[in-house]
């Protein structure tokens, strides 16, 4: 799949999603539920001083980025000490080819795979499938999306959020399910289908929440326990991680993990917090006999060099999605990329370029709610603002937008022009008036009037009315 999830025109895709009532209601429900639980559980963290934890987390993540070469090297050395192998991949192609070659060389027929954003990003599944390997996604949501012909994820933590239970039932029915659209029954069907896969798979693939430099461990956080099963029976195991997902020490990881579950799902902890350290003991009946870690750059080093480097502190909790008023309205698929919400707005153009994603920075009201909640202390809304600046000043992607802003700047900085403009505005908008309101705007007004009416502009300007009132006129 890669970062981009479809080739539709951005506006067309957005319009389609805005007309998906179930999806939009699901986003609202998810935000309300997760935020309520998140607020509750954060109030119980120590003395409830979230800001202090947020600052700490930001510090430990920033420290790693400042010394990323050192900590990645230390981590790689320790993976090898634990009996594993490390492959540094400069891009998606290198990473996917390495894992696929490994699978082919070892005669792997079946892979059980746990949810991982970076494996989505590098398009790993399709590389493996093209090589004739049977890939089984095991996270319930990813399993649903795979059966639904690789429907793309719409949320980083709950990827199938855009599908309702009836749609899921229909997807399962094509694969032998004959029950009703009851979540417990649907989950039981998935359980029955997947349990045997874990113990018969030749290879387990999973991501990495945080890699621990001081020991070479990979930490994995989940509620379902599917990741733990992927790390249990398969003899050949591969962890794929973005190069920034490092914590220097276990103590640093404690701070980050303490915030991850609370922000991601509104719980003190996920059911399973796991650390994997390479191959298992000689003679063990299960566990990895061969272990590989693939460390992926894929554009991250360019981000590290840029004014956007703080976005690499992200721990993929989705707290920013869950608070964002724009995401609430448009849903994950409207971002046209696997990374959605404020994180996606910042990260996607950096990893995949502005050409296909120049609209993303405008999917933000700059309200700053994402920055407020971010457990990694990333100034997300400032980075989005920086994207807008780059687009306007350096990339000059929209001649119309640039001309509009220049025009506005010229008018607003010259009082006589401002006075003239506000004086003639009621007259200029008169042709658009219906029943005393502007119902069908043109150009920049259209975005507003498509959804609601714009009140008529008053003939008497506010400052004229106020000046008159101050002199004892009409009140």
């Amino acid at each position, binding site marked *: 799949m890669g970062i981009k999830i479809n080739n539709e025109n951005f506006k067309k895709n957005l319009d389609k999603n805005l007309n998906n009532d179930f999806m939009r209601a699901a986003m609202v429900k998810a935000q309300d539920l997760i935020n309520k639980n998140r607020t509750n559980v954060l109030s119980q963290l*120590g003395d409830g001083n979230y800001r202090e934890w947020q*600052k700490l987390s930001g510090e430990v993540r920033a420290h790693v980025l400042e010394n990323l070469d050192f900590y990645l090297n230390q981590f790689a050395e320790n993976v090898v000490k634990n009996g594993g192998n490390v492959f540094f991949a400069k891009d998606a192609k290198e990473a996917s080819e390495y894992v696929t070659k490994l699978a082919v060389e070892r005669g792997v027929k079946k892979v059980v795979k746990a949810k991982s954003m970076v494996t989505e990003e590098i398009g790993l599944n399709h590389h493996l499938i093209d090589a004739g390997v049977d890939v089984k996604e095991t996270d319930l949501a990813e399993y649903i999306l795979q059966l639904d012909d690789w429907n793309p994820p719409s949320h980083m933590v709950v990827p199938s959020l855009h599908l309702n239970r009836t749609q899921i039932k229909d997807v399962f029915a094509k694969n032998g399910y004959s029950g009703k659209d009851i979540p417990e029954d649907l989950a039981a069907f998935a359980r029955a289908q997947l349990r045997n896969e*874990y113990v018969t798979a030749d290879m387990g693939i999973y991501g990495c929440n945080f890699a621990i430099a001081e020991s070479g461990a990979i930490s994995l956080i989940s509620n*379902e326990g599917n990741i*733990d099963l992927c790390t249990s029976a398969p003899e050949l195991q591969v962890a794929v991680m973005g190069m920034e997902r490092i914590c220097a020490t276990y103590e640093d990881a404690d701070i980050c993990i303490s915030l991850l579950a609370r922000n991601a799902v509104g719980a003190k902890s*996920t059911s399973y917090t796991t650390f*994997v350290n390479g191959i298992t003991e000689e003679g063990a*009946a299960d566990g990895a006999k061969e272990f590989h870690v693939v460390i992926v750059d894929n554009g991250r080093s360019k981000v590290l060099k840029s004014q956007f480097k703080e976005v690499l502190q992200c721990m993929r909790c989705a707290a920013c999605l869950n608070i964002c008023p724009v995401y609430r309205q448009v849903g994950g698929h409207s971002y046209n990329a696997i990374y959605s919400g404020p994180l996606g707005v910042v990260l996607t153009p950096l990893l995949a370029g502005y050409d296909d994603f120049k609209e993303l920075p405008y999917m933000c009201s700059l309200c700053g709610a994402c920055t407020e909640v971010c457990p990694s202390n990333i100034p997300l809304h400032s980075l989005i603002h920086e994207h807008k600046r780059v687009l306007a000043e350096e990339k000059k992607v929209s001649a119309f937008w640039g001309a509009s802003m220049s025009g506005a700047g010229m008018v607003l900085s010259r009082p006589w022009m401002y006075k003239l403009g506000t004086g003639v505005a009621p007259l200029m908008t008169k042709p658009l008036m219906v029943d005393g309101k502007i119902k069908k705007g043109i150009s920049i007004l259209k975005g507003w009037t498509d959804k609601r009416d714009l009140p008529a502009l008053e003939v008497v300007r506010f400052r004229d009315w106020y000046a008159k009132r101050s002199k004892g006129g009409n009140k």
Partner: protein
Amino acid sequence: MKKGQILNRESFISNLSNILGREMPKEVVHPGLSSTPHLEIYKGFTQAQLAEEFHKNAQVNKAGSGGKIDSVIIEKKDLAKTVAEKLVEHGTGPIIAWNDERFAQWGLTDVLKDAYVWTDEKGRENVDKALNAHYGVCVSDLSLAETASYTVIDKLGKGRSSNFLPLNYVCIVPQSTIVPRLTQGMQKLHEMSKQGINPAAINFICGSSSSSDIELNKVWGVHGPIRLTYLIVSDL
């Protein structure tokens, strides 16, 4: 490839060093944390108080799971009787247990006489037994009060599959293993790592397998155990 290889390291790391504007340092001094709120949680609590907190938090998890998670505080003299009760509480069926001498030391030999004991020499048979087990039994190596988590540290005789495949799970939590939170768990892993001990897997577990992926409805037992019972033993 050979075992224990690192591929493409030089070009990858030197690219990062260039970006960071210097050579890769030989050592980095960790600046330490600017504050330590994580050390304040349950600070100064006795083992008995930590056990109470563990139990309290397990009961919160019980309420949140519709009873799928449970915990009781017992004494060692009641352990065999309680384990026997818990191993039939949700019907009867095959049992799998670790190959752990503590079971005998604690008088559980008779209760577990019909259990399949994980025996690494038997290879994949262990995994198949775990797949079909109705109950699994384990002992927590380290227990976290804040989240009511038990910990299993990978070792021969404690097969990973036996921890994640049985339908129902019974975990014995010796009170002496309870620490305030993940912080102390991480301290232990740090100390072990400093001594060159990095177990192949360390699992902190605080619930049964669950998912909210279908319209955000919480469902239990998506992959692994559906029910989890902690037996907190106050004099172990």
